[in-house]
Structures are given as C-alpha cells and as structure tokens.
C-alpha cells in the first residue's frame, strides 16, 4: 500500500497513515497460510471421505456440466485450431500453424485486430473513469440515493442487442436525435452518417454504447471498495486541512486500487470481446469490425471453422493473459487496520 510506505510523501500529516503502519497486529503469530488459504480449501486434515458419498453426488452435476460444456470445448478449440476443419468434408486434416498464418495474412483480420485495440482503449478508459466518478458521487448517503443507484444500474441489466437498437436510432443518419442536436448547435452543417464512414468515429460511437452498458459494473465495484474505506481516514485528513484532490490522491486511490484493478480487468475483457454492439450497429459495414465479429463471420458465414478456431484460440489466450497480467500489476491486498 503506497500511502503506508510513504507517509509524508504527499505532505499529508502522518497521523492516519503512520498509525496505520504501527498497528499491524503484532500480537498475532504468523500462520503459514498459503496464498489461497482464504478459500478455506485446506480444512481437509484427517480422514478423507468423512462425509461418505454424499459430496460426490452433490458436486457431480456441476462437474459433468462444466466438464462437458466448458472445459471439453475449450480443449477442442485448442486442438482444432491446428486442423483444417470443414464440417461438410470430414475428416479434418492437420495443418500445423496453417490456420494461424492464414488469418494473420488476412487483411480483414488485421483490420479487426486494430479496431479491437481501439475498442479496448476507449472502453477501458471511459468505463473506469466514468465508473469511478459515479462511485465517488454516490459514496456518501443522501436522500434519493437508492433511486439514483437503481437508475445507474439500469443500463447494465438490459440486453446488449436492445441497447444497440436504441442507440442506432439515436445515431440514425436521417432522423437521429444526435444529428438534430449537433445541427441545432451548429456543430455540423448537415446531417452525418456517423456509423460506417470513418473508422475511429465509428469505433468510438459503438464503444460508447458498450460503455453505457458496462459502466454501472465498474461503478458498483468501486463503490463497494469506497464504502469500506474507514471514515476516520477522511476525518483526519480534514483536520489536517487536506484539499479534496489530495484526499482522493493520497487516501482514496491507494485504498481502492484492488477494486480499480478488478474494474479494469472487467472492462478490458468485455471490450476485447465486444460483439453484440458491433453486430447490431455495424451490420453491413466492416469499418468497425471487432475480433469477435470477424470470428463469427469467418466461422458461421464463410464456414471456415479452422480459421475461426485459430482466431478463437488467440483471442482466448489474449483474454486470459491480459486478465492475469493486469491483476498482477494492480492488485495488492489492502490492509485498513
């Protein structure tokens, strides 16, 4: 935790942070706890099978369902990415990295890779910034907070397709409200085709629809962390006359870092996987194609399953590596005591 390591660094009086450091529960002897001990899986000392066959019965449906419909398909993806798969003319032929070199040579795939990079940039930056801002606004109780919280959550709970339909009407080139507003503000001379004409503009506007949907999640995650920050820290800072931006920088941000890490990973993974909004808003154009939409069209319209598998495998690896990486960098346990 930054604040505890450098109590004086930001000129904040060391009262809250200094005492933070000293009160690190020296009386408790260190148990040799594994990193995963919080999961409580280690309570198996003694005879195994104490509960007889019952737990196996209780876990079997889960194991079968996840094994057959999540783990087995993932393994299948990893294997078949190296085969030429054509459902009409079996058997499959081993082609090594053939599928991978084919997709990397495909200009449309490269375009969608670049687009997805933009989706991730816009998606993560906007979602985390907006989500944190909303969480800070809702941190303290006030009259009507419950209603505002419900309103904030609402876009998260709605189907992405519906949101795509609603926003495509807002962006409509001939009757859309966005055109109307921009024209009456004299920001545009005449009505524009927003989606499909310009790459970055298309991506930003489609990304905005996804940001609208996933910001509530980031807000809730950060809000939960904000509410667990002890009030005394703020009071102490107030007594010392710290300005609000200093308080945010020196107390709030360091303490909610794990929550920010989680919100960032969620936004990263969701924007890397953006599909629905692209599919609905960008139906007939490739300007805003994402990896996921390219995978879908390669597989289920061009029926090129091998290349679809290869794309899927690369995207899966990217997702897993990115999630683990960001958590490793940003996530450190916070000790409030």
């Amino acid at each position, binding site marked *: 935790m930054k604040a505890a390591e450098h109590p004086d660094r930001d000129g904040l009086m060391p009262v809250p942070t200094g005492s933070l450091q000293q009160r690190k529960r020296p009386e408790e002897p260190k148990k040799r706890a594994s990193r995963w001990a919080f999961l*409580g*899986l280690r309570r198996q000392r003694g005879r195994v099978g104490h*509960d007889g066959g*019952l*737990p196996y019965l*209780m*876990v079997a*449906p*889960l194991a079968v*369902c*996840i094994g057959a*419909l*999540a*783990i087995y*398909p*993932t393994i*299948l*993806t990893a294997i*078949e990415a190296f085969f030429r798969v054509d*459902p009409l003319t079996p058997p499959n032929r081993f082609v090594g990295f053939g599928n991978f070199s084919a997709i990397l040579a495909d200009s449309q795939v490269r375009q969608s890779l670049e687009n997805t990079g933009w989706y991730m940039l816009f998606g993560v930056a906007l979602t985390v910034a907006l989500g944190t801002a909303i969480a800070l*606004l809702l941190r303290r109780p006030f009259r009507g907070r*419950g209603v*505002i*919280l*419900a*309103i904030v959550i*609402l*876009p*998260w*709970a*709605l*189907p*992405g*397709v*519906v949101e*795509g*339909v*609603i926003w*495509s*009407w*807002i962006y409509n080139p*001939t*009757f*859309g409200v966005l055109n*109307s507003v921009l024209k009456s503000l004299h920001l545009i001379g005449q009505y524009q085709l927003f989606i499909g004409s310009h790459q970055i503009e298309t991506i930003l506007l489609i990304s905005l629809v996804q940001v*609208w949907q996933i910001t509530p*999640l980031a807000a*809730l995650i950060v809000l*939960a962390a904000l509410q667990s920050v002890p009030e005394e820290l703020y009071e102490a800072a107030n007594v010392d006359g710290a300005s609000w931006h200093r308080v945010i920088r020196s107390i709030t941000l360091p303490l909610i870092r794990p929550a920010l890490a989680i919100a960032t990973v969620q936004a990263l*993974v969701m924007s890397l*996987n953006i*599909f629905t909004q692209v*599919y609905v808003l960008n139906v007939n154009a490739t300007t805003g194609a994402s990896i*996921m939409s390219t995978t*879908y069209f390669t597989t289920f319209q061009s029926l090129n*399953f091998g290349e679809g598998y290869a794309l*899927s495998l690369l995207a*899966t690896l990217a*997702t*897993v590596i990115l999630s683990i990486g960001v958590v490793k960098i940003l996530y450190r346990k916070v000790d409030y005591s």
Partner: protein
Amino acid sequence: MRRALRRSGRVVALAIVVFWSLFPLYWALKTSLSTNSAAERTPVQYVVTHPSFTAYQAVFGYGPESSEAAGGIARSLINVTVEASAATILTLFIAVLAAYAFARMRFRLKTVVFYAVIATLMLPVYATLIPLYRIMSDLGLVNTYVGIVLVYTSGFLPLALWIMYNVFMSLPPSIEEAARIDGATTLQTFRRVVLPMVRPGIAATAIVTFLFGWSQFIFPLVLSSSSSTEPLTVLLAAIDSRDVPYTLLNAAAIVAVGIPAIIVFFLNRWIVTGITAGSVK
C-alpha cells in the same frame, strides 16, 4: 459559500449521470409512442404530443401496422422467458448443492474441481462457441430449448457457484453443528437449517442469473435462430436489419427492456449484492 458551490456541483453531476443513464431509454419510449410521421420529423420533437399505441399493437400482431417482419415477437418473448427461467432454476439447483459441498464437506479432488470450475469464469465466449455449436449439432440439440438451456447453464454456473460458496462460507458453522448434535442428518440440516438462512444469497444469485439469461445474444444467434426457440434478442437484431418502421423497432426494444427494468427498480438491492460478490474474485 464554498459548501454551497460544492453542493450544487454535486447536484449538477448527479443530474448528468441520470440523464446519461436514462436518455437513450426515454428516447426509445418516446419514439415507440409516436406515429411514424412524428418519429421521422426533422428537427426532432423531444416530447410526444399525441401518444399512439399502434406500434405496440403491431408488436403483438394486431392493428393496422402489424406485419410479417414484426411477427414472432410475442413468440420470442415466450422463448426468452422459458430459456432464462429454466437456465436460472437449473443453475441455482446445481450451484447451491455443489457450493454447499465445497464449503462444508470433505472429499477427494475437491480443490482441483473447485479451481477448474472457477477458472472457467475467465474464459471468453470464443473459447467455447464453435465447439459448442458442433457438439450441439451432433447431439441434435440445435434449435431446442434443452440445448440452449444447457449451454446457458454451463456459462452461468461458475459465477453462481462462486457467489453461493461465499454465502455458505460466511455462515457460522456452529448452527449446523447444533442441528447435528440434535440428531439431524446432513440432508436434514441442509434443507431445514442451512437453506432458509441463505435465501437472500439464493435470491441475489437467481436475479443476476436471470438477467444474464434474458440478455444472451451470441449463443442463441448460433444455437437457436429458428422461430420456435429464438429469444427476443436474436429476433430484434434480425428485424433491425429489415425494413420495419422505427416506431415498431423501438416499441419492441421497450418490450425487451420491461422485465429487466422492473427487476432493477424493485430488486436492485439483490443485484448490488450479486454483482459485487461476483466480481471480487
């Protein structure tokens, strides 16, 4: 003075947040209640002066504007209700049983199975989409309720398991021990003592799972795109690219928004629990 300034700053910021969250929905609602000519007027009208319900009649196959394109919305509404509900019930049943075993019982391979299931939370749609399509078509389960419900369940289970596992772990074991001392069997303890205590956790899990089920798009797009099983989301995306009036499209969108909106406004406490429990991995 500074205080008043900060206060009004907050109010303005909150107003922007509310506007950002609600305006797109207001706009869809406004359009759905307009006549076609009013919806296509430029510059736009911001309020409806004479609300018209023809678009909603057309959505459900009645009235002058009902058309081939809009047909099937009522059916797809039934489909999504059946699929989301069935997946929720199945997910909850499987997850609650397994989570209790993981939280309280001793058995072989416990750690391995638990981590294997939780690890699938990280998997994106890509990892399983194509193989699941091929498995389901081999089994003849494409375009069936069973197929789509099984796929949903496998997708929703890890999160449900994680939430329910934490719920069970947060219970003090002493109550169950007392029940056992009084002579209750494991199953009796589970049904009579534990389940009533975790009802809030089950409710939160069920609500979040149902909302996920209601919103699914890419899996049903691939696995159930015939009119007998396609959910509202798939149909909506299909008619979006057809030539239907904007009023009808927005009316259909508002219909799809209805159930989740009701859930959010009356049950948002549970959603907050479900989301925050699920995301803090």
